[in-house]
């Protein structure tokens, strides 16, 4: 059973609870909730990103008003590849082209059904090792791993 970490700031608490129910109902995996109380969204973003980067969780999902803040913060963490998405095509490409391990979404920007569709795309698409995007992903992974 896949382990999924999810967290958000207070702006997305209800939306996060709804998406947790959805993920569990679809059987995508076992969800661990990293919380929703901290308005300093970087805290939950970093916690989720570190846990995913360490391999304790296979995927992370983060939410805030637009999804931007949590994605910016998560991407500061070595090994985290966070993608903020609001359309299904982007969520698919986040996995297929970018090998993202964290999906970020906005409670202010998207409706509940869109977030379900984004989660479907993100949790069902798989990066194909050796695909055309491999060298592109390799470059930023290399930069990430070697930065001071």
């Amino acid at each position, binding site marked *: 059973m896949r382990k999924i970490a999810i967290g958000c700031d207070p702006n997305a608490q209800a939306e996060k609870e709804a998406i947790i129910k959805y993920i569990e109902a679809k059987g995508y995996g076992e969800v661990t909730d990293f919380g929703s109380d901290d308005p300093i969204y970087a805290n939950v973003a970093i916690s989720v990103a570190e846990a995913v980067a360490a391999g304790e969780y296979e995927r992370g999902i983060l939410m805030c008003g637009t999804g931007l803040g949590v994605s910016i913060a998560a991407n500061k963490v070595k090994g985290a590849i966070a993608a903020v998405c609001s359309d299904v095509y982007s969520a698919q490409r986040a996995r297929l082209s970018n090998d993202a391990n964290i999906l970020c979404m906005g409670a202010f920007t998207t*409706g509940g059904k869109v977030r379900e569709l984004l989660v479907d795309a993100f949790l069902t698409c798989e990066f194909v090792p050796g695909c055309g995007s491999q060298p592109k992903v390799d470059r930023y992974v290399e930069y990430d791993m070697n930065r001071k």
Partner: protein
Amino acid sequence: MKNENVKKIIMAADRYGLALKNAIREDLEKQGYDVYDVNPDEPMLYQDAACAVAGGIRSGEYDRGFAFCGTGMGVSIICNKHKGVYAALVESVYQARRARQVNNTNVLCMGGFLIGHEMGREMANAWLQMEHMVDMDPDMAKIVGKEFDALVETEGKVLETN
């Protein structure tokens, strides 16, 4: 900034668009817009919501309307069946602006399944603030004006023969 040209607004929604409609209505009311919400608490069928809004526009009592359902598709299709009602289904602020500036729409439609409340407010305000052909290059404005006149003419022909 409130558009003083917009005197009265009418809005209605089905069950999937109700919360989005209410979030937008609250924001518009705060700015001082005169908004008539056909169904503040109880959902309607989207067909009825669309007809209520379209009817309001056709009566001349309301300058602009908003209609909501799950994707916004159903209400926009039905609104556009009404002569003199030009409804745009939007998902972006850019589209919302152009829907008034270029297309001279008088109804804006959105989907509760798709659009977050803040995004809905942004699109609603962007649309309300625009007027047909305003802030446009004058040559572009002439073309756009002619295009809308052609639309109205086409509408007349189509509705006659059906």
